[in-house]
């Protein structure tokens, strides 16, 4: 942690304050006047605390700032691909079903992590086998042995 601004760094206190304000406003906007006294008691006291903590972080950001390397600069193409694949995976779970969405996502990640495999059919086949094997094993353990019903996929039903 550095207390002097250097190129490529961010003031983490400012960002932290922004995050606290974001959550505080988010929760505050959801406060319903129809809440019972008991249901509103605790949030009514904690939401102002979130605002105060955000304000304290803001003040610290001016008085004694903490600078760290920008987190978005650490995000390279592979990481962004992982995030995008993960988001697509979890949002298509219910639609495509566990088996298909998981197999496709694992395969995509394996190929992205070693792109030269696209030119090697044997490597591609190996990755497909890994993806199918892992998904098949998990499916067997959860669906058949532990009786946890995994999403079948609304597309197929």
């Amino acid at each position: 942690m550095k207390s002097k601004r250097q190129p490529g760094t961010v003031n983490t206190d400012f960002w932290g304050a922004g995050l606290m304000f974001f959550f505080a406003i988010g929760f505050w906007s959801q406060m319903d006047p129809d809440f019972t006294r008991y249901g509103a008691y605790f949030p009514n006291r904690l939401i102002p605390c979130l605002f105060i903590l955000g304000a304290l972080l803001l003040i610290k950001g001016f008085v004694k700032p903490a600078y760290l390397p920008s987190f978005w600069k650490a995000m390279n193409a592979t990481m962004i691909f992982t995030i995008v694949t993960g988001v697509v995976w979890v949002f298509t779970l219910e639609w495509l079903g566990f088996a298909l969405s998981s197999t496709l996502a694992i395969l995509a990640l394996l190929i992205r992590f070693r792109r030269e495999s696209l030119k090697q059919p044997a490597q591609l086949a190996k990755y497909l086998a890994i993806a199918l094997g892992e998904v098949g094993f998990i499916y067997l353990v959860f669906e058949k042995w532990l009786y946890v019903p995994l999403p079948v996929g609304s597309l197929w039903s």
Partner: protein
Amino acid sequence: MDVLFSAAGEVLTLQNLLFMSIAMVLGIIAGALPGFSATMAIAVMVPFTFTMSPVSGLVTIGALYCAAIYGGCFSAILLNTPGTPSSIGTTFDGYPMARQGRGEEAIYTATFASGFGGFFGTFMLILFALPLARVALRFGPPEYFWVSIFGLTIIASLSPQSLLKGIAGGFLGLMISMIGIAPVGGDVRFDLGVVDFQGGVELISILIGFFCIPEILRLATNPEDNYEEVKPEGHTDTGIHPMKQGWLNVIRNMGNTVRSSIIGAFVGILPGAGGNIANLVAYSETKRVAKDPETFGKGNPQGIVATESSNNAVVEGAMVPLLALGVPGSPPAAIIYGALLLQGLAPGPELFTTRGDITYAFLFSFIVSNVMIVVFGLLVGKWIYKAVVLVPTRVLIPSILLLTVVGSFAIRNNSMDVIVMFLGGIVGYVMRELEFDPGPVVLGLILGPIAEKGFVQGLIMGNGVSADMPWLIFFTRPLSIVLIVLSVLSAAWPLIRAAYDRHRAARAAEGGAS
């Protein structure tokens, strides 16, 4: 003593040992799978015990419970993903050890610590079940509120980089815990109009998201960066075999082991509290009294000793109110309560007299289970570690992601939990990059419902005593006062310690000058 010998005879049959061994393997696997909790494992196992004799059925369930809690350490150490909420703290030092090529030592340390914690908890259960249960029952809403405040005072040790951000994270966790139906009043709060949020945000999803996803994203920046190589011939930096080093980590710091086991057993006794709280409190206390607190979070095995001995002592602690008073204080205890009823046993004080043979056999089985944990841990620990370490990171990342997806889905069979897990993980990554540790957020999430319920119910109780000053009830009950003193001491401890260190340094300087 005769009762115990007779119980040993009941438990140590070939058939029971076989059932317990099977339960042990299944429990370790269930515990190691993120999202598959001890409660779920027991729930799945109970139907298989219907046809067994009462002793066989109960010892099988007991072994499964112990093993599931222990199994959580494997994913915590190797994947930075707590297999169960009871092993959150194990990730703090276990995963750094694994990345440093000391994962085998970490697993053995966890194994011996779990075994010791379990032993300790069992002796507490056998010796003090009835008096401890009576103390636990004197805890009312004000006391639970103060227990949660005491729990929140450990934020300082969970957030070494920035106390202010730790406190902010803790409050954020408290707020997130309020999503869903209010514990008192029944209001549906902060659900954004999404039906799935009415049941609240699932703790396990947030746990997996906050601890595992940021680590996966970090690994994804360079998928060719593998675990450090296993030390040649399995030896540690000191030249000592990891198994021996794991044993020494537990034995040479007996104060830590015993203290953490006591914390675990006591927290386990309190209805509503459990391993998720005990392991963090034990970790914090260990760090607080350590001579080298700065090494915690970087691969200090004492952190593992604290969390693993405490969470296994919780198992037996949870049996105290269940068996002695018939009060199931945790979800696994509630299922075991059902299993006891199905076997024709009514939990309560009479259980120890009317069906003492079965009850003491059940208690004795915990000793056997903890021996089995050590044996199984020593047998399989090395191979599980090597299997994970040998897998290239580029294959490990999608494999762990698969476990996180299925783990967060399995808890409630709800796809929204998977979405919350992954999006929460991205938020967790950003927060971690901004120096917000995930520990305080998760602590707030765990303690939020206890704090809110205790506070609001306490005020309702206080209204009955004094309508003008209902809050007075929080400061007038003897147990509350004890907890307030403990909370103040805990919060002020960094200041006390700094003053003590300054005093010692001054005395050393004086001694050097003379």
